[in-house]
């Protein structure tokens, strides 16, 4: 079965939902693809232990209420199938979707850096732990340490506490000066100021980073460096994330140019590729408020309503300012590049230690020699780490963009192009 959309939106997080709702009144046939079971993205991930904000619920209801918006959950893009046509797959089948306009709202993933013990059971990403808890993981009375960088640490800690965990420490690698400088700017965005008070935790420490996760078969303790001194905390869980990496692979495969590590867009959220737009974290980390307004601008522009889009520019500028303050405050300390020891695994799919990677000239050579990034995650985890550690640029994405049933790949037209 093939499908057609006037407007195809990839991702149903805040940016994707906002784009669909902005475009809906045009009457365009809109299809939203999302690889999660329910709309909301990472920030509004739903689950048995999730408490969604009203805004997320309302947006979800409005998505459902619009008869011209079709939402495919649990669906991933596998390959380009031709001009303005994608091969996609869900749990049951693969099919082709043609489109006229496309908005990339593919979000971001956590940057996980290798350190001794990071592959022990009990160690997750910061966002990873939050997602697990929302999905039903019981953490009642568990001792949790949260480490890494960025506002996600506070959000993850709040979720853990809300579900009965005892958060022993939130270790932010950024310096006190940087974080205080950021906090001083918060009154420019009153909502964020209130949010930061509600998330603030007396166990929050700046200038503090993980050195090792300790334990034999499972995590037993965490070793941290706090302002030059080593401390050890016995705990049951460590949630460690070093910020977010924009998911640009699909955009790159479509031919959209990058600006740094994110998809490049102009004032209309248009990428370098005509009729292709991008919004939200895949264009750079900025939080859900920025994603919402960028999504709305992209949605309006994609259906030709440039006036409505232009009206949103001031709001976007305000949240871009917030994003800028955030990104400069939480820049990573170069010391984090030396956390991995020679025997620390970097690629956990293929069990490749740091010693097998250092000394190579680039990602491709290292990959061929060590099998790093050749496993099921296809370098989604280690690729980001190696880009940070060695400044190795990931190779251009090739189909299948995600693991896909061979049956799905056989949906591609097998006649040679003329």
């Amino acid at each position: 079965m093939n499908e057609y959309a006037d407007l195809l939106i990839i991702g149903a997080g805040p940016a994707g939902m906002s784009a669909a709702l902005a475009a809906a009144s045009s009457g365009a046939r809109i299809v939203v693809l999302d690889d999660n079971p329910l709309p909301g993205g990472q920030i509004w991930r739903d689950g048995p232990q999730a408490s969604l904000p009203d805004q997320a619920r309302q947006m979800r209801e409005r998505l459902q209420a619009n008869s011209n918006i079709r939402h495919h959950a649990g669906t991933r893009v596998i390959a380009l199938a031709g001009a303005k046509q994608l091969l996609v797959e869900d749990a049951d089948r693969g099919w082709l979707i043609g489109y006229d306009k496309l908005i990339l709202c593919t979000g971001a993933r956590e940057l996980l850096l290798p350190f001794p013990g990071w592959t022990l059971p009990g160690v997750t990403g910061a966002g990873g732990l939050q997602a697990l808890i929302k999905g039903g993981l019981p953490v009642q009375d568990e001792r949790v340490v949260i480490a890494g960088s960025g506002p996600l640490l506070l959000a993850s800690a709040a979720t853990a506490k809300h579900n009965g965990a005892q958060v022993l420490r939130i270790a932010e690698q950024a310096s006190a000066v940087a974080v205080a400088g950021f906090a001083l700017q918060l009154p420019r965005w009153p909502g964020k100021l209130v949010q930061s008070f509600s998330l603030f935790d007396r166990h929050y420490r700046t200038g503090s980073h993980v050195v090792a996760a300790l334990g034999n078969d499972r995590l037993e303790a965490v070793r941290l460096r706090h302002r030059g001194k080593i401390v050890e905390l016995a705990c049951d869980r460590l949630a460690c994330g070093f910020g977010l990496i924009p998911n640009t692979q699909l955009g790159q495969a479509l031919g959209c140019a990058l600006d740094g590590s994110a998809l490049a867009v102009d004032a209309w959220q248009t990428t370098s590729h005509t009729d292709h737009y991008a919004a939200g974290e895949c264009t750079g980390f900025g939080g859900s408020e920025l994603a919402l307004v960028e999504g709305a601008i992209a949605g309006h522009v994609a259906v030709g309503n440039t006036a409505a889009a232009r009206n949103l520019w001031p709001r976007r500028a305000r949240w871009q300012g917030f994003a800028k303050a955030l990104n400069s405050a939480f820049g990573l300390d170069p010391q984090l590049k030396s956390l991995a020891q020679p025997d620390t695994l970097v690629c956990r799919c293929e069990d490749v230690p740091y010693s097998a990677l250092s000394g190579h000239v680039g990602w491709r050579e290292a990959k061929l020699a060590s099998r790093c990034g050749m496993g099921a995650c296809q370098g989604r985890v280690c690729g980001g780490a190696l880009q940070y550690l060695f400044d190795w640029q990931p190779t251009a994405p090739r189909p299948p963009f995600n693991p896909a049933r061979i049956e799905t790949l056989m949906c591609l037209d097998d006649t040679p192009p003329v």
Partner: protein
Amino acid sequence: MNQGLVADVIVIGAGIIGAACAQALARRGLRVLVLDAGLHGATAAGMGHLLVLDDNPAELALSQYSVQRWREQAPQLPESCAYRSNGTLWLAANAEEMAVAQSKHMNLQARGVTCELITGNALHAREPELRDGLEGGLLINGDGILYAPATANWMLDTPGIEQRRARVSELDGNRVRLDDGQWLNAEAVILANGIQANDLCPELPIEPKKGHLLITDRYPRKVTHTLVELGYVTSAHNATGPSTACNIQPRPTGQLFIGASRQFGTTDPQVEGWMLAKMLKRATEYMPGLAQLNGIRAWTGFRAASPDGLPLIGQHPKRKGLWLAVGHEGMGVTTAPGTADLLVAQLFNETPPLAVQPYLPQRFLEEAAYA
């Protein structure tokens, strides 16, 4: 070593052929400098299938000798080289292909290659995932597989070999010029850079043949042998247009390689969806259960093919001091040991282990001007 020489021998290309030549020379006590431009070569893209092929006597002689050499070397190969002697099972879909299997069987047995004919039911017992109704097959027991990039690196680790990342821009007999303008001299230069050989030596009749490959997630013990359709002999090797053939190889990780495709007249490395689909459809015709497995990665590579399908091994007839080890098409990994032995024997003016005549570059390049 003479004054002014950077090494006894310069090898251009650090793929499996260059690495095998370098190792063979270094083991004889020569100092070898291996230059590699870091371009994408066939060694990294191929399946690492070690197989005896008998389309003609010269191909059979070189592949049989080489597979035997791999078997001898196997105990020394580190685990990262992933060598396995799992055999190739050639699949016959109909009576016509079974007749091909029978004649191959006779031919190979006559040459001392261990192999067995397998008929319908027995085939299913050997490889339960194959579809019902296949006519039979030919199992070549001594064939194997390895992971070629790691094997090339292991060869290059031999004492006496120096490796340098450098792009060669010009050849002049036994000296080479790098793209920074610097000239390097040696007693001999070996050109072993596969598909890039034409850039330095435009008179070589090497043509790129593009191939696609896909690898699955881990499904241990689903397949034992490397499974190749006998139609391969007719459909892929001899066709002039794009073609596919069923080629399924179990990796030691439990993953499966699925190939194979051939395209001419292109140097575009993109994975092409239509060709991927065509290739996978062909493979699932033989093994329907593949359809439900997850493919995790696909890529392409280019085989450096000569007009008669045999490599060029020997001194360039018009460029004294320049030795060729190119044009192996899909057989470079298999025939690397044989290629190295033939080349080294010629360099040292020794009796080669096989008759060199069919592989000499003279067959395409006019007779030596300097002789």
